[in-house]
């Protein structure tokens, strides 16, 4: 079996999607949050898009680039925030890849998004318990997880719409199709 087309292993697409992650993270930073620890997770949309065109390894590379790029842009690379970002993004990235690989066409991006958010919030709550809040973190769990599911629902809907309407993605997928036919 041949591996993913070289185009999809290309640095350009990876760099562009990583830039999109950072751009969306910046938009998320600007959007006001009603509750302090709430994250909308819109920076994960390019990661969901990448599931369609990248191999799991490349998607994980994108997750790493998103984490480090975000850390450099916001300057939080050496702070506790980075630790939360690293653990949450890694957990959500792995969870999204696994669920997408197992279910493929049986799951929509809404399902992928909710799975990722649940994994991310759970890991971050565990870290918050040991590093900052102690046992009180358990009290935060229900609202954080419920709000996480709600916000990830909207993020998933947006990702699904983007995947179905994006001309840019269609171009990428058509090249991938041409490659598959050729070989």
């Amino acid at each position, binding site marked *: 079996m041949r591996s993913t087309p070289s185009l999809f292993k290309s640095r350009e697409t990876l760099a562009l999607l990583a830039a999109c992650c950072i751009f969306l993270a*910046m938009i998320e930073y600007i959007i006001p949050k009603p509750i302090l620890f709430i994250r909308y997770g819109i920076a994960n949309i390019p990661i969901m898009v990448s599931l369609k065109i990248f191999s799991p390894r490349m998607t994980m590379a994108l997750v790493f680039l998103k984490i480090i790029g975000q850390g450099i*842009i916001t300057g939080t690379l050496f702070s506790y925030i980075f630790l939360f970002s690293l653990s949450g993004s890694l957990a959500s990235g792995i969870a999204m890849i696994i669920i997408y690989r197992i279910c493929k066409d049986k799951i929509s991006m809404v399902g992928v998004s909710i799975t990722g958010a649940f994994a991310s919030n759970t890991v971050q709550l565990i870290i918050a318990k040991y590093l*900052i809040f102690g046992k009180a973190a358990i*009290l935060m769990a229900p609202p954080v997880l419920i709000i996480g599911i709600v916000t990830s629902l909207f993020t998933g809907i947006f990702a699904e719409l983007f995947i179905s309407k994006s001309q840019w993605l269609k171009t990428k997928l058509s090249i991938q199709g041409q490659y598959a036919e050729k070989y």
Partner: protein
Amino acid sequence: MLKNIDPRLYLITGIIIFPAFLFTTDLFIRFLFVIIAVVLNIITGRKFRVLPNILLSLGIIIAHIYPPSGKVYYEIGQFYITQGAIFLGLKKSLLLIGSVYISRFSVRKDLVLPGKAGALFYEIFFYFEKLTELHLKFKKNIIEQIDSKLLEIENSPAIKEGAKTKSPSINSKPCFRQILFFAAIVFLFWGLFGYSHINLWRS
């Protein structure tokens, strides 16, 4: 004085001062470190917002009310607000806030990483700058706006060429005053750290 400084100088300073901040056990000294870090952020052009930091601190302190320890300050029903719990909450919140501001001071947007990773990050930040040219209008179709920008980047040879160009290195060496400024920061952090530990040994 603080313009056109090699971002590596910020990074080196940050790496040197961070252990002093991290390993200090004195609450007052840690508070001073946070104040200095915030001031450094402001004078070097980074933003500082008071309210989120206050809310974060309050959240952490409230989370540490239980279990009570030490002198009781207030009694609210069955809850005791104690000195030990407040100090622990304050210590953790200062650690969290301080690490954010020291990190923001140390890591600059124009930081160029070495090697292949550096070239890749240059490419990412180049595309990021191109994406920031997109002024999203929330009344229009957001997906279409992002999609057309991605197509524009993808189909423009000039943009792709620009992304491959090696980032310009900062040629101007830091002047004496700039070096003095960063040396003073290092001296201040480690001086305060040393002072707090001398007091600790004496007591």
